[in-house]
């Protein structure tokens, strides 16, 4: 205040002298409260993810603008050539493009984990006496919110472009719920890479290498009938193919039971394998 060169923080810093009284008061905690449950700790970390969205809203760009661009691009690019008209192609494409966009968004989980490790806050979490996977589950809960936003954005764009699903609101909602749940399971792949790799650039690189084949070599853009046999073999075992089939089934009001079983089974397997690997890395870090 005294001179123009003083920074805004200087007066506050100068005024502060640690007082034995007020510090003593906070130190006299008495009984430590009981540890939070696994559920409560995970929810608290989920709340942290929401706070981060509140403070850095730019990160929602990935789940709004990117899906809109994807939907418009592929609908108008292939609409005429593949299905004769845009409104006809969008009936086929929309569930698939929704899956593609959301699954692509999952890689940001790995980036978030990786940047947090670089900072000291991760050490703080790891020294807390809480359920060990809670910080990881918290990330994924925050991400589930982002996935829901991305899916909703695409649905709105689709409806504007003329997407009229036969499954009605129930079919659309269950389809979206299935997609978000699978993405939650799939994200454990990225928490593992986030902990394993050294920089956010390498996480990005690996994510692209995994996501491009998984999403493009599937039934998202075209039916696999015209592909060569070896490629069809890959497409048939690709979990994304089954996810797309299941979501399409739900939205079309014609549930695909086989695909549903596949999706649930592969989701459970992803959590079992990559969840375990993630926690192993987390504890060893």
């Amino acid at each position, binding site marked *: 205040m005294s001179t123009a060169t003083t920074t805004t923080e200087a007066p506050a810093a100068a005024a502060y002298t640690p007082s034995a009284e007020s510090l003593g008061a*906070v130190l006299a905690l008495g009984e430590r409260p009981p540890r939070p449950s696994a559920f409560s700790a995970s929810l608290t970390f989920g709340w942290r993810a929401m706070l981060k969205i509140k403070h850095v809203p730019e990160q929602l760009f990935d789940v709004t603008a990117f899906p809109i661009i994807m939907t418009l691009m592929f609908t108008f690019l292939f609409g005429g050539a593949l299905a004769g008209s845009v409104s006809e192609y969008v009936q086929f494409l929309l569930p698939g493009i929704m899956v593609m966009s959301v699954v692509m968004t999952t890689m940001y989980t790995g980036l978030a984990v990786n940047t947090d490790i670089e900072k000291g806050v991760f050490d703080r979490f790891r020294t807390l006496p809480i359920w060990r996977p809670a910080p990881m589950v918290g990330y994924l809960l925050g991400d589930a919110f982002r996935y829901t936003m991305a899916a909703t954005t695409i649905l709105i764009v689709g409806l504007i472009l003329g997407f009229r699903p036969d499954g009605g609101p129930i079919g659309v909602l269950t389809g979206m719920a299935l997609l978000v749940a699978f993405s939650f399971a799939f994200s454990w792949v990225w928490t593992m890479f986030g902990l394993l790799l050294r920089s956010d650039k390498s996480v990005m690189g690996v994510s692209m290498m995994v996501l491009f084949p998984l999403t493009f070599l599937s039934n998202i853009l075209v039916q696999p009938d015209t592909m060569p046999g070896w490629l069809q073999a890959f497409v048939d075992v690709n979990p994304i193919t089954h996810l797309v089939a299941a979501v399409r089934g739900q939205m079309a009001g014609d549930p695909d039971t086989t695909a549903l079983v596949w999706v649930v089974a592969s989701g459970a397997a992803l959590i079992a394998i990559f969840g375990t690997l993630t926690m192993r890395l987390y504890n060893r870090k």
Partner: protein
Amino acid sequence: MSRETSGLAIETSGLVKTFGKTQAVAGVDLTVRAGTVYGLLGPNGAGKTTVVRMLATLLRPDAGEARVFGRDVVRDADAVRGRVSLTGQYASVDEDLTGTENLVLLARLLGHTKPAARERAAALLEAFGLTDAADRQIKKYSGGMRRRIDIAASILNTPDLLFLDEPTTGLDPRSRNQVWEIIRLVVAHGTTVLLTTQYLDEADRLAGRIAVIDHGKVIAEGTPGELKSSVGAGSVHVRLRDAERRAEAEQVLTRTLGRALAAPVQLEADPVALTARVSGDETDRAAAEQASHALAELARHGITVDDFSLGQPSLDEVFLALTDRTTDPHTAAETLEPAATDKETVA
């Protein structure tokens, strides 16, 4: 809540941690009594942080054992986590969140209810002089404020043992004094503190006992006073008027002090300055007497002394003698031999 005021807060034996080919910690034995401040002193890369990370359950030791309040840090990690807290070298708070949000988040994770968490956050911010910055993101805090919110987060549940890893590195003098005062108050309340630092005056001011660490090993251990007396009873610092006569002065001092010298006379980076470390135990004469005798001899040889001082050796001197590192490459070779013998007397 049981709070041991007697007994041991930390015991380690033969602690080893290897990263690739480098042995960051090469067999460390430590004993820290509860309720005290213990300093780990050493240069960058000495292995201080690695020791702290193992004790805080962040790293698994490759060999050896470590117990915190009698609980093994590997087998009983969860019990240890319930009683310790760590303030790392880099702010262990979320930079994107505000001060309040960080503390509420942590309070919730430590089991406080929502209203209790908010109350606790407000009380901590108040006690650390951060109430005005409560709703600002941490990334907008100054260095000193960051440190304070970090320590506030660390004492949220009044830990029994607090690890402070280089708590004042990079802080301005005023913020450093604030942190020192906070540490004193926390210790006065009964929390044991393990402090790592590369600043000798910091260890000297705060720690009751100090372990000097270099290349992953404890090379000296004791109270600050013990460490100082291990290098000699005192140091005579002399500044000459004429730099050209320094070599002569060095000879005079060496001859006069003789066996009373704890180490060869040291030529400082300043071309007119010399330092002689005097050990009191070799002869019956006190360090002050030795010094005045030496000064009289210099005068007798017609060497003009502009300034002189006699003091207890600073921890800097202890440190340099023990770690075989000096800022002046010319004196490095000279201090190497006696430093090696010092090690034995200390250990």
